[in-house]
């Protein structure tokens, strides 16, 4: 219940934050929904916390042309309740409403969730399906990394030391695209046993899967089959192929794979029904 001691800074600007984060042992704190429980269990013990949760610079939702730009510090609730997101990126609205609970969504941020890269988190499925771009910043540098390169392994991302996510960039959904996020909920924690995010239009299909393996991934093999057959069952049948499936008391590896197939099929069908 009680974390180890640490130093705390609440920089006023992003620049100031990045300067502080350049110190070894410094770790960013945004909403803290993943980090603080881990600190309380002493599974994490950062020496210095840089509170980027109150930086207005990181808190925005903007549409620019065919892209949505969401500041990394935007809370789940701000995304969930945003009419712009609902209108232009309904997959994010739907996915985010599945995260945790009201209180967690009030504090947790889009950047924090991405950076934590929990293998059972909801957001990463949508990020994969949306081919989201992450704008990463550090003292003296900025780069953009795509979702497929950003999620590296369990709890591991492409973020380097001192680097934080500044912005998540997702495409504006075109008319005629249907989306769906289907989740099998772990009854205790509320995390996803598996979660499947789908976007489908007459032109393309994108499938993002979370919960199955060490990291969320885009199921390109299933996408290809769907593109050629438009058969949800056939596409879903291969969604877990080759995945190194997680296993725990809530779902064995083989059942998880089965669920991934079922939920993919459901998501594909629902997304297709929403293509309108």
């Amino acid at each position: 219940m009680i974390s180890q001691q640490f130093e705390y800074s609440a920089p006023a600007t992003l620049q100031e934050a990045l300067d502080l984060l350049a110190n070894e042992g410094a770790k960013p704190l945004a909403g803290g929904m993943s980090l603080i429980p881990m600190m309380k269990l002493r599974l994490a013990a950062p020496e210095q916390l840089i509170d980027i949760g109150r930086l207005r610079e990181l808190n925005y939702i903007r549409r620019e042309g065919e892209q949505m730009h969401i500041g990394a510090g935007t809370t789940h609730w701000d995304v969930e309740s945003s009419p712009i997101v609902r209108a232009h990126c309904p997959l994010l609205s739907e996915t985010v409403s599945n995260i945790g609970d009201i209180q967690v969504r009030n504090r947790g941020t889009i950047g924090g969730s991405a950076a934590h890269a929990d293998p059972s988190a909801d957001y990463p499925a949508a990020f994969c399906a949306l081919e989201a771009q992450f704008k990463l910043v550090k003292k003296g540098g900025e780069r953009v990394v795509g979702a497929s390169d950003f999620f590296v392994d369990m709890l591991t991302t492409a973020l380097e030391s001192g680097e934080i996510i500044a912005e998540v960039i997702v495409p504006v959904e075109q008319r005629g695209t249907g989306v769906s996020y289907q989740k099998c909920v772990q009854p205790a924690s509320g995390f996803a046993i598996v979660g499947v995010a789908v976007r489908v239009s007459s032109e393309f299909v994108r499938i993002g899967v979370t919960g199955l393996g060490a990291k969320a991934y885009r199921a390109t093999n299933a996408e290809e089959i769907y593109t050629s057959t438009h058969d949800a069952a056939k596409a879903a049948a291969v969604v877990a192929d080759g995945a190194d499936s997680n296993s725990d008391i809530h779902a064995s590896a083989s059942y998880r794979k089965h669920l991934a197939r079922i939920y993919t099929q459901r998501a594909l069908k629902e997304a297709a029904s929403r293509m309108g």
Partner: protein
Amino acid sequence: MATTTITKTEKLVGKAMRRQEDPRLITGSATYVDDIQMPGMLHACILRSPHGAANIKSVDIAAALAHPGVAAVYVGKDTEKVGPVPCGASLPGLRVPHHYVLAIDRVYFIGHPVAVVVATDKYIARDAVDLIEVEYETLQAVTDPEKAIGPGAPPVHPEWPDNVAFNYHQEGGDVDTAFAQAEVVVKQRITSQRLIPSSMETRGVVADYNTGDKALTIWSSTQIPHLMRTLVAQMLGAPEHKVRVVTPEVGGGFGSKLNVYAEEALMGFVAMKLGQPVKWIESRRENCMCTIHGRGHVDYFEVAAKKDGTILGIKLKLIQDLGAYHQLLTPAIPTLSVLMMPGLYRCQNVRADIVGAFTNAVPTDAYRGAGRPEATHGIERMVDILAAELKMDPAEIRLKNFIHNDEFPYATGTGLSYDSGNYAAPLHKAMDLIDYHNLREEQRQARSQGRLMGIGLSTYGEICAFGPSPATPAGGWESATVKIEPSGMVTVMTGSSPHGQGEETTFAQITADELGVGIDDVIVLHGDTAIVQYGIGTFGSRGTAVGGTAVYFALQELKKKIKKYGAMLLESEEVSFSDGVCVDHKTGKSVTLAEIAGASHRAMKLPPGTQPGMVETYFWEPPNFAFPFGAHAVVTEVNRETGDIEIKRYVAVDDCGNIINPLIVAGQVHGGVVQGLGQALWEQAVYDDNGQLITGEFMDYAIPRASMIPWIETEHTVTPSPVNPLGVKGVGEAGTIGCSPAVVNSVVDALSTLGVRHIDMPMTPEKIWNLMEGARA
């Protein structure tokens, strides 16, 4: 003294009244144990074993002791003389391991306390725990009770290599003849998994020692303040009269606080050593690891019957997972299962054999239902299995075997005397409510469409109102004192120690009716051994049936005294007392309760042979248990793709005798049912083979959330208990007991077309999916 108009007060018993205790709870002004702050208070944090079984080679506390702010660090050898942690149950030949408050040289389960740090601040105490170095030599652990008593298992306690704590046999009737005459015998292994009670408030203790008075006060989140006082005094070698136990607001117990734990004595020890108050609050992780678990049964049932469904005999081999130690009632719990094993059925031929198995796990003990849910689950599953075997309707087979209404009091083959019953009534009511016969038709249609729809029934009985003293380990009576203050206001002191059951309200309802006062003119005090006469506590659905009855009898005594004073004041030979007024019907003159109370305290004049004041105490010994019963009916549908179970309808018809407050009874049933659903569908305490508790937090131990459960339709039949004058039977555990078999019966019914005949709990989607896959293969 004037002639007053007598107004008939509205009777409160039976009325759905909102609770008297709620205003403090909804405004955040209640005081739970963690809310207690005292000057100079120290904070304790406990170092616990990370191993299921290990020898302690060394404990180095030097760095912790040197940490700024640390007042003391104690290890096992410092507290060797404290305790042992008491076991109140006795069975012939019971092996009782010495349960030290801190481990001495060996740890027996994950979370076993090894050392305690006491510091000025809880943050410092926590930091210092990390500075203690313990060298362990890990040993092989065993957590499965069947493996534990099987060949080659590592011994939990080296002195008892077979891991058997006790064998217990009970038999009634002529079982062998029953089985020899049987036309059909059904057998099934049925488990009732370990559960973590998970009261929302964890345990907590504050201890304060007055060095001048040599008096110890312990605030503890417990269901049994008085028993704790007696036992903690023994553990500490302190004179009982100088130990006071205060139970502040208690955030739920469900049996898990019907116990005396190491920490209560340990904090007393620390306070006495240091002469400063000390607080220990259990973390959730500690609660999962170190507060008792419930259930933990492996049951082998056999039922012998005639082809027409008449049950002839029941055999049970019960393996109880005890854990590493006996807590207060650990070995007694499975004996309650045996008492309850014939359920509501007219079957005298019963045989049960219990093996109590030591395992490297936290002890099991009373958890909502305590032995009766396991028994009911077993017999109600077996009756369904028998019905399936005989191709009978599950309702029909139950109706055929119920004890008849004219047979009460009914002596069971297990030695109980069922007080009163009308077992068919709730079943019929539940079937009507759920529209059973049309449902079966709907099910036929669903099946023809390939849908897996199930209908499940359970008809349960339970032992409540614990209980006659000879049948309980610590006395089964309850006490009450009722005082009328000089102003006429009424104070009730009950030995029951409620923690959410609403007895401040129900006891006030009883009191208000008897004395003819308003409910706000009554206060109910409990949970402080310095205020309340000795009492037993709240558990085993005994609060109202035993504690409430004690209040009732104290009130009857008090009314005699009221009438004596009334007669004196009215200078009358004969007065009546009702609705708060004594009346001489000859003269029409009357005197109010307040006037009588005032006169009794002023004591200008006393009725002959009567003491001043207006107080009566009653210790009520119940002549028997009370036996509530009921029927639950559940409709489920299983998702063929995933194995998910949807509960489409849940109907609970309970008969808990007379009802004092329907709102509170409904709340008890809802809560009980949801704990039953938790066991049926999600909850399980899982240890791995090395004794690690995998479900060590709410991240993995799934207690039900609001969105996971269906609307619960409740109804009642009313069969008053003859055991007490209130006619109440008890309802705290009913929902839990009735629930799990009904849900499992429903899901088994859904899957019966696939050849499924039994499913163990929790019925996780994966388990169901595997069954469906198995059937497909």
